[in-house]
C-alpha cells in the first residue's frame, strides 16, 4: 500500500460513473441536504418542460438552472465516489491477497484420530479448523500458530519487505491471511469465520459498505438538516412576501435562492470527508475497526506508551565496563564476553559486540574447553558459562551479591556505588562474577529514539499527556521519562497496573489510548478508548483493540491522533466555510429577485452584477463548482497544527470563516463577468 496520487485516471473514470449511479434517491436520502437538492432538480426539470409549452418563463434560463443543479448533485456524488474509489483501490490490492488459496486442512479421521491433510479452498475453513503451512505457502486465513515457528513475509499487507518471525505460544503467534510462509512449517488454528477475517472486515470498511455514521457526523448532519429547514422556511415564506410587494418571483429563482442558501458545500462533501479520514488511517497502515475509533483518537487525553521499542530503541545496550580494582581490564572484558556468548538476548549480544570492539577475543582454548552454558533462569536471575573450572556469572546486582556473599566473598563497596550510579543515570547495572568473586560491573543503557522529545512536545501542545510504561525500577524509569520528555511513567509495570492506570484516568473523564501486542495487554486494550494492537501481536490483542497497526510501529498512535483531529477539523472548517458563503449569495440573489419591481434595491447590489438573471446564475454556478474545488481539501484533510485550541480556532476562523465570506464575492463576480461576456 504505497501512497498513490490524489487522483488517477482510472479512479476518476469509475467515480464519474458512480456519480450518476448515486443519483438514485434511495441512496441520496441518507444525506438530507443533497436529497432536497435532488427534489429541487426534479422540480426544475418539470419547470423546464412546462416552460417549453407555455411562455410563462424563459426555458433557456430554466434549463441552465436545471443543469447547474444537476451538476451540483453530480459533483457531490463525485466527491463521495472518489473517496470511496480511493479506498476501493486500496481494498482491491488487499483483496488480491484474499483470492482463493488452497488450504492444507488437518482432518481427524478414524477412531485413531490420525491426522490427515486434505486440500480445501480457503473459504471453506471454519473457526476452530487447523491447517498446515509450509515454505512457500500462502496462509489461507487468519489464525493462531499452535505448533511450530516460521518466517513470514507480510509485505502483502504491510508493504514491509523484511520477513518476520511467528511462533507458537507467546505474543507473536498470530498470522494473517494472505501472507506468505518463507521457511519452516507451522500448524495454525483458524480464528475467524469465513468472510469475517481481518482483511474482509478491512475491505468492507474502506469500501464504505459497512461505514456507519459516527456520533459527530450524526450531530453535524442534524445541524445541517436544521439549516436546510431554516432555509426552506425562508424560501417558502418569501412567496407571500413577494406577492404582498407585487414582485413576482419565478420558480427557478426560488429554487436558486434555496439551493444557494442551504449548506450544499459541506452537505456534498460530508461523507467524502469521513471516508477519506479512514483512508488516511489506512495509508498510515492502520486498520480501524470503525470510523468512530478514528474520531475518538482525535479526543485522546492520555497516551500510554511502552518504553521498549517506542521511546527507546529496542533494547538496552552495553555502554561501559567497570572492572573492580585489582582486576585487569582485559581480564574483566574477557569474563564479560564469555558470560554473554550463550546469551541470545539483545543485551547479551551488545555486550559481546562492545567487548570485541574493545579488542577482546574469545580465548583460543574455548573450542577445546569443556563448556557448559548457563541459561538465565528466574530462580537464579543470572546467566553465564562454566568453562573448565571457571564459573562466570552475570546478573542483577542483588542476585550476584547473594551468590558471592553465599560463597563467603564480600561485596566490594566500589561496585555497589558504581551500580547505584549507573541506575540513577537511567542505566541498568549487570554485575559479573568469576568463581563467585566480583570482577566488575557492566553498564547497560537505554538509547532514546531520535526525535521523541519533539514528538512528545507536539503531543503536549495538542493536550495529550504521555505516559511511559516500563518494567524498570522507578529510579531508572524516572530518569528515562525525564530524558525522553514524557509527562508520567509507570515503573515496574505489570499488566494489571496498566489497566488500573487507564481506569483511573477514565474515571477522571479522560480518554485513554494505548498500544499493545501481547495477550496480557488485551484487557487494557479493551479498556482503553483507543486500543491499537500491533499486527504481530496475538489474536486476543487484535480482537480487544479497535485498531490494528500493520507496521507494528509503536509511535503510530501519534499519527492516529492527528488523523482523528484532522477529520473533525475538516468537517468543522468546511461547515463554517459553507455557511459563511451565504452572505455573498444573499447579496447576489436577493437584490436580483426584487430589483425589477423595487429599483431602489439596486443599492443592495454591492457586487454590481450585470443583470438579475446573471446574478442568480452566477450564485448557483459558484455554489456548484465550489464542491469539486474543495474535493482535494476534503480528501487530504485540513492541516492540523498543534498550537493550542484557541489559536487553532483563530486560524481556522480566519481562513475558512473570513475566507468563506470573501471568496464567494470574488467568485460570483468573476462568473458574472464571464456570463455577461457570453450573453
Amino acid at each position: 500500500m504505497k501512497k498513490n496520487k490524489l487522483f488517477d485516471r482510472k479512479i476518476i473514470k469509475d467515480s464519474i460513473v458512480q456519480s450518476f449511479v448515486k443519483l438514485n434517491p434511495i441512496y441520496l436520502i441518507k444525506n438530507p441536504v443533497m436529497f432536497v437538492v435532488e427534489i429541487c432538480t426534479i422540480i426544475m426539470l418539470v419547470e423546464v418542460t412546462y416552460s417549453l409549452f407555455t411562455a410563462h418563463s424563459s426555458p433557456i434560463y430554466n434549463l441552465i438552472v436545471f443543469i447547474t443543479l444537476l451538476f451540483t448533485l453530480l459533483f457531490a456524488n463525485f466527491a463521495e465516489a472518489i473517496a470511496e474509489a480511493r479506498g476501493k483501490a486500496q481494498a482491491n490490492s488487499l483483496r488480491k491477497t484474499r483470492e482463493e488459496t488452497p488450504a492444507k486442512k488437518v482432518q481427524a479421521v478414524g477412531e485413531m484420530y490420525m491426522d490427515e491433510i486434505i486440500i480445501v479452498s480457503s473459504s471453506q475453513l471454519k473457526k476452530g479448523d487447523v491447517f498446515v503451512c509450509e515454505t512457500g505457502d500462502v496462509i489461507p486465513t487468519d489464525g493462531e500458530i499452535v505448533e511450530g515457528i516460521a518466517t513470514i513475509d507480510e509485505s502483502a499487507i504491510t508493504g514491509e519487505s523484511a520477513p518476520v518471525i511467528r511462533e507458537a505460544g507467546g505474543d507473536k503467534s498470530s498470522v494473517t491471511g494472505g501472507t506468505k510462509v518463507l521457511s519452516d512449517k507451522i500448524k495454525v488454528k483458524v480464528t475467524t469465520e469465513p468472510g469475517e477475517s481481518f482483511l474482509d472486515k478491512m475491505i468492507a470498511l474502506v469500501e464504505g459498505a459497512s461505514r456507519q455514521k459516527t456520533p459527530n457526523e450524526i450531530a453535524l448532519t442534524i445541524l445541517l438538516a436544521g439549516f436546510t429547514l431554516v432555509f426552506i422556511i425562508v424560501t417558502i415564506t418569501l412567496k407571500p412576501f413577494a406577492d404582498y410587494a407585487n414582485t413576482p418571483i419565478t420558480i427557478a429563482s426560488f429554487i436558486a435562492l434555496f439551493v444557494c442558501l442551504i449548506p450544499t458545500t459541506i452537505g456534498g462533501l460530508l461523507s467524502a470527508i469521513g471516508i477519506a479520514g479512514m483512508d488516511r488511517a489506512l495509508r498510515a497502515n492502520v486498520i480501524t475497526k470503525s470510523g468512530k475509533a478514528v474520531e475518538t483518537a482525535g479526543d485522546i487525553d492520555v497516551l500510554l506508551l511502552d518504553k521498549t521499542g517506542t521511546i527507546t530503541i529496542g533494547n538496552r545496550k552495553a555502554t561501559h565496563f567497570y572492572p573492580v580494582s585489582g582486576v585487569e581490564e582485559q581480564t574483566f572484558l574477557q569474563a564479560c564476553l564469555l558470560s554473554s556468548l550463550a546469551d541470545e538476548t539483545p543485551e547479551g549480544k551488545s555486550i559481546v559486540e562492545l567487548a570485541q570492539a574493545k579488542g577482546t577475543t574469545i580465548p583460543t582454548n574455548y573450542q577445546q574447553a569443556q563448556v557448559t552454558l548457563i541459561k538465565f533462569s528466574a530462580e537464579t536471575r543470572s546467566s553465564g558459562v562454566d568453562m573448565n573450572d571457571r564459573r562466570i556469572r552475570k546478573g542483577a546486582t542483588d542476585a550476584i551479591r547473594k551468590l558471592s556473599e553465599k560463597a563467603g566473598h564480600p561485596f566490594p563497596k566500589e561496585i555497589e556505588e558504581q551500580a547505584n550510579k549507573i541506575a540513577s543515570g537511567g542505566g541498568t547495572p549487570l554485575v559479573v562474577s568469576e568463581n563467585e568473586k566480583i570482577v566488575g560491573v557492566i553498564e547497560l543503557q537505554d538509547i532514546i529514539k531520535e526525535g521523541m522529545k519533539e514528538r512528545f512536545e507536539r503531543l503536549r501542545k495538542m493536550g495529550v499527556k504521555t505516559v511511559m510504561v516500563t518494567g524498570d525500577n522507578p529510579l531508572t524509569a524516572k530518569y528515562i521519562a525525564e530524558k525522553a520528555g514524557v509527562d508520567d511513567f509507570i515503573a515496574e509495570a505489570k499488566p494489571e497496573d496498566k489497566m488500573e492506570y487507564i481506569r483511573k484516568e477514565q474515571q477522571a473523564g479522560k480518554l485513554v489510548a494505548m498500544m499493545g501486542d501481547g495477550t496480557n495487554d488485551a484487557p487494557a486494550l479493551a479498556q482503553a478508548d483507543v486500543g491499537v494492537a500491533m499486527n504481530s501481536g496475538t489474536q486476543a490483542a487484535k480482537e480487544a483493540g479497535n485498531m490494528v497497526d500493520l507496521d507494528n510501529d509503536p509511535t503510530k498512535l501519534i499519527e492516529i491522533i492527528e488523523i482523528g483531529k484532522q477529520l473533525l477539523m475538516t468537517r468543522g472548517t468546511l461547515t463554517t466555510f459553507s455557511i459563511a458563503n451565504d452572505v455573498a449569495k444573499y447579496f447576489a440573489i436577493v437584490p436580483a429577485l426584487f430589483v425589477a419591481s423595487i429599483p431602489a434595491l439596486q443599492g443592495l447590489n454591492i457586487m454590481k452584477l450585470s443583470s438579475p438573471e446573471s446574478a442568480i446564475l452566477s450564485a448557483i454556478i459558484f455554489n456548484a463548482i465550489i464542491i469539486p474545488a474543495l474535493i482535494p481539501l476534503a480528501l487530504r484533510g485540513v492541516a492540523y497544527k498543534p498550537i493550542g485550541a484557541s489559536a487553532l480556532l483563530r486560524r481556522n476562523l480566519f481562513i475558512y470563516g473570513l475566507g468563506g465570506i470573501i471568496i464567494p464575492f470574488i467568485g460570483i463576480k468573476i462568473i458574472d463577468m464571464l456570463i455577461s461576456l457570453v450573453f
Partner: protein
Amino acid sequence: MSYTELLGVLLFFFATFLLAIPLGKYIARVYAGERTLLDPIFNPIERTFFKLCGIDATKQMNWKQNLLALLTINMVWFLMAMFILMNQSWLPLNPDGNPNMTADLAFNTSISFVVNCNLQHYSGESGVSYFSQIFALMFLQFVSAATGMAAAAVLFNALRERISDQLGNFYNYFVKSATRILLPLCIIVSVILLFRGTPMTMEGKDTMISMEGDTVQVSRGPAAAFVAIKHIGTNGGGFFGVNSAHPFENPDYLTNIVEMVAQTIIPFAMIFALGFYLKRRKLAWMIFGVMTLGFVLLVVPAILSEVGGNPAIAAMGVDQSQGAMEGKEVRFGAAASGYWSIITTVISTGSVNAMHDSTMPVSGLTQLLAMMVNAIYGGCGVGILNFYIYIILAVFISGLMVGRTPEFMGKKIEAREIKIAMIVALSHTFLILTGTALASFVFTNNPEIGWLNNPGFHGFSEMLYEYTSSSANNGSGFEGLGDNTPWWNISTGIVLLLSRFIPIIGPIAIAGILANKKYIPESAGTLKTDTGTFGLMVFAVIVIIAALSFFPALTLGPIAEYFSMR
C-alpha cells in the same frame, strides 16, 4: 445634535453596567442559597405559604420535574388572568367602568402577560380595570419575570462542574427571584417615580381644563408600582396606552434614565451572576462582551439615523436639526429615544418612550434585528437561556474546527443536544416568518381588511414587527397596525405561547442532559470558551443564524424603505 444628548446615552449604559456587577454578585448569592438581609422578613412568610401549598421547596428536582412545575404553575396563572379580564366589569376597583374583555382579547392579553411579553392589543385607560391592572397584569409581570429568572437559575445549577440530575428546586428559585430580587428593586424604582409625579391612586378619572379651555378627562391609577415592575421585570406593558411616552408613566428625563436603567439592570446582572455563581468570571465577561458588541452595532446606527433627521421631512422644509422628532417626546430627545428603542428591543421589555412606527428605516431595521437575535442581554432570565443555545451551536462548530469532540463546561455536546438547540433556533425563525407570511397572504388577498395604515414596505414592516415582537416575547409594537382583531389576537397569542416555552424548555433540557453526563476536565486541547476568539465565534453564529435567515424579509421591509427614501 448636541453632545449632551450622546453623553446622556453613555451615562445610561455605564450607570447600568456599574450597578449590575454588585447586583449580579447578590443574585448569585441568592441562588446559591446564601443568607441575605431580607431573609428574616420573607423566610417565615414563605415557609407558611409553602406549607399551605404542600410544596417542599428544599427538595432537589431534575430538569423534567423543574420544567413540569414551571409549566403547571404558568397554566394556572393564565386561567386566573383570563377569568379576571373577562369579568372585570363587575369585579371591584373599576372606577371608570371599563367593560369586560372579549374572549380573544383576554386570551391574547393573558398569554402575553404570562409569557413576559405584554403585547397589549388594548389600551390601559379604557381596556382594563384597576383590579385587572393589579391582580391580573401586575401580578403576572412579577411572576413571569420570576419564572424566567428561576429557569435561568436551574440552568446555572446545571452548569456546575459535577455529574448530577439534581438541579435545585424551581419553586425555591421562583419565590427567591420574586421576593429577594424583583420586589426590593421595584420598591426603589416606584418610589423614585412617585416623587417625580407618576400617580399612585385608586381613584378614577380626574377632570382638568386644558390651556385651550376644554374640559379633559384624565385617566390615572396605581401607575407607579406598575411602571416599576414593568421595567424591572422586562415586561414592558404600559399602564397607559402610549406606554412610557405618557407623561404620567415617564414624567421627565430623570425618570427616563431610571426606567432605562431599570429595564437593563437584571439582564446585565444575570450575566455577571452566572460568572459569580459558577466562579467563572471570564465566561461572564465573554458573554457580556459578545452581547455588548451586538448591542453597539445595533444602537449606533439607530441613534445616528435618529439624530440625523428624516430626509423626507427635511425636503418639506421642516427643520431637522433636533433629529427625527416625529413621534418622539421633546423631553427625551432623539438620541435618548433611539437608545431606548434598541434597549427595549434587545431586552425583551418592549416598553416604548417614542413611536417606533415613526423611527427611521435604519432604526426600524435594528429594532427588528434586535428582536430577531433575541439574545443580546435579552429578557429577565430568558436572555441567558437564549444565548446558551447560541453557545451550544458555536461550541459544536468550533469544537469540530479545532479537531476535538465539542464540549462546553466539561460536557460533551452530542447529537441530542444539537437537535434540541436547532429546534429552539428554528422555532423563532419559523414563528416570525410563517406568521408574517400568513398575514401577508391574507392581506394581499383581502386588501380591504383594513389592518394597515401604511401599505407598501412600511406596512410590511408593521406586520413583520408584530410577529417578531411576539416571537421575541418583546411586546413592543410598530403600531399603525389594526391589531385588536381575532386574527391578530389569536395568531400572536399562539406565537407568544410557543416562543416563550420552547426557548425555556430547550435550554433547560440541554443543560439537564449535559449535567448528567461525564465531566471531562480541561486539557491543553480543550477549546476555552471564555476567550475573545470563542466570543467572536458565538457572535458569528448569532449573525448567521438569526440575522441571515431574516435577510429577505428585512429587504422587503425596512431595507427597501431605506433605499427608497434616499
